């Protein structure tokens, strides 16, 4: 048990006011603009958003995977075990990344080394982080491959990635990520490249591993179905900011931000009647070279008010632990949230 797992109140990973930007030929892209979230042991936080909203950059900066330059973390902290892991001055990043925080990626084919046996790739993390001998590390690699439900793990460990199917590769990547029993597992679109049946297998595996070792999972996805299946808490990201955060029920049934409502209206569920049209969100996200002063969703928001353009919206706690970055919840706003729901459902 880790120190943070022993104290159920304190989050394992606590990210505060993270800002990330990139220098490009076109200017500075402000990809992440003040993101805060936390995740507790044994719980899953889903970060939802569309391409370009900054969700991947957020977790990559936590994992130290942002190339610097051109990237730059200009502000913010990410506390894990009492250490700020986005600080440049960590003496040995390897004590944390790959050890206390594991990560799995969207495309397992390009994330694994094609010239190394799968077992050796798992063993490598154990040799680096745990100081295992080659023999010990390989034995443990076979063990974690079995944990990841790979049949004939000792044979599979000696094969190269090309001999694996997409689903099997994703299991192998999960095996690498969990080999050191991390406190936090970051999963960046882990099932986007997979078929639904294989996706279901991988999601079940992640849940099962979480039940066994109590790790916290940060799940990056754009698929609200995956969120509904996996998440305890949800943060919705738009244009580099978290616009709504709350429990999965809060976000799905009592959504408080117009963007969250827009996303839900844009996709069919098994109960959407055929004669009811899907409602697309018109327009495109703002240019993050020059992010707007006010609300990032202003230009696309059907409920926009005059204040939303020039002034940045406040982060309002609409219910306990349920926040929305929106002027509609300001006491002076003419519309209430329940009115908003009525309008969306009408």
């Amino acid at each position, binding site marked *: 048990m880790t120190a943070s797992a022993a104290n159920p109140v304190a989050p394992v990973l606590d990210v505060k006011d993270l800002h990330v930007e990139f220098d490009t030929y076109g200017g500075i892209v402000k990809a992440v603009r003040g993101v805060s979230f936390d995740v507790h042991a044994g719980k899953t936080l889903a970060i939802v958003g*569309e391409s370009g909203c900054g969700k991947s950059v957020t977790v990559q900066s936590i994992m130290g995977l942002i190339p610097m330059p051109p990237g730059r973390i200009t502000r913010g902290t990410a506390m894990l075990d009492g250490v700020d892991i986005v600080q440049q001055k960590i003496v040995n990043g390897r004590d944390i990344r790959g050890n206390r925080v594991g990560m799995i990626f969207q495309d397992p084919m390009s994330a694994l080394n094609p010239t190394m046996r799968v077992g050796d790739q798992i063993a490598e993390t154990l040799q680096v982080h745990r100081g295992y001998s080659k023999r010990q590390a390989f034995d443990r690699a076979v063990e974690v491959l079995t944990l990841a439900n790979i049949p004939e793990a000792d044979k599979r460990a000696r094969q190269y990635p090309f001999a694996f199917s997409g689903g099997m590769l994703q299991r192998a990547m999960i095996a690498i990520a969990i080999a050191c029993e991390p406190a936090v597992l970051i999963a960046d679109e882990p099932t986007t490249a997979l078929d639904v049946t294989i996706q*279901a297998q991988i999601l079940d595996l992640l849940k099962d591993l979480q039940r066994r070792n109590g790790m916290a999972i940060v799940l990056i996805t*754009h698929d609200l*179905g995956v969120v509904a*299946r996996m998440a305890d808490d949800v943060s919705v990201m738009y244009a580099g900011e978290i616009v709504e955060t709350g429990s999965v029920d809060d976000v799905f*049934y009592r959504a408080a931000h117009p963007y969250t409502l827009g996303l839900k209206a844009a996709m*069919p*569920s098994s109960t959407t009647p055929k004669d009811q049209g*899907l409602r697309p*969100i018109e327009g495109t996200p703002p240019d993050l070279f020059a992010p707007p002063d006010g609300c990032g969703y202003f230009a696309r928001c059907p409920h926009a008010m005059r204040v939303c353009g020039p002034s940045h919206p406040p982060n309002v706690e609409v219910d306990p632990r349920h926040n929305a970055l929106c002027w509609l919840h300001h006491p002076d706003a003419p519309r209430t949230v329940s009115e908003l729901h009525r309008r969306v459902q009408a």
Partner: protein
Amino acid sequence: MTALVDARHVTKHFRIGRGQTVHAVDDVSLAIAEREIVGLVGESGSGKSTFGKTLVGLHEKTSGEVYFEGERLPQRYRPADFQRYSRRMQMIFQDPYSSLNPRMTVGEIIGEGVRLQGGSNSAAIRSEVDDWLERVGLERVHAARYPHELSGGQRQRVGIARALILKPKFVVCDEPISALDVSVQAQIVRLLGEIKSSMGLTMLFIAHDLSMVRYLSDRMAVMYLGSMVEIGPSEAVYSQPLHPYTQMLVASNPEPDPESERQRATVPIAGEIPSPINVGQGCRFAGRCPHVMDMCRSVTPELRGAAGVEPDRRVACHLYEPATSD
């Protein structure tokens, strides 16, 4: 009711040397009525894209026939056949990044079909292209742009305009939205819906997103490893799947609703789709099926009506007695 498109026993095998054959599509029959949308689902490798391409002549058929408005289409298309049939049948491709020529402007891409058909001068083509740009929600200035200057959603709009400018009656949409973001998907789905009702289109909508297919299509067909295992009205197939494979697909499909996800009965999802090389006798799903019987491994089940279910449904599974009236 006569079918607009009638595929009978279509088979497409690819020889890959050393006596090996990929059974991409095996004996698939499908009749699509005028103005109908049929959704085709299945995992990658199930042969759904190959079937769609074979329908519009992008692959020659190993055997079987396709009839369009009662006319038998050639087994293998020659350039003149493409000229002739491209006015009636078109395809919208999955990947809006690789399906547009990067060296042609958007205007050239959309207008190419009209130009190749002949009989229009460049001014007429240009005004038609402008028309279609507006219809698919782009602007006239986009005609001079190159594909790399557009976003994924915009490119897919170009792909749609390119396919529909010749006013085809039948369009194969091969996963037209799976590469796009949720909010953009809804834009494209709405656009397809509007165009369908204004032009009276008939569509084969290939997708792996079951919720979207249920929402969009009149009938849903399910393919597994080259064969069709089930077909019927979308709502019925989704809510009461007959074939064990369809049941597995529906059970895997995550719903954007936490409450129904919590109440979801856990169906074990076993195995992965096997290789389609040199497929043998018997039901192709036998290796993953939780209800497998001895006969499944030796006798290939036929797609037919089943006793006790609606007459407009067909399933290829030995678990069901054949319908008595069939």
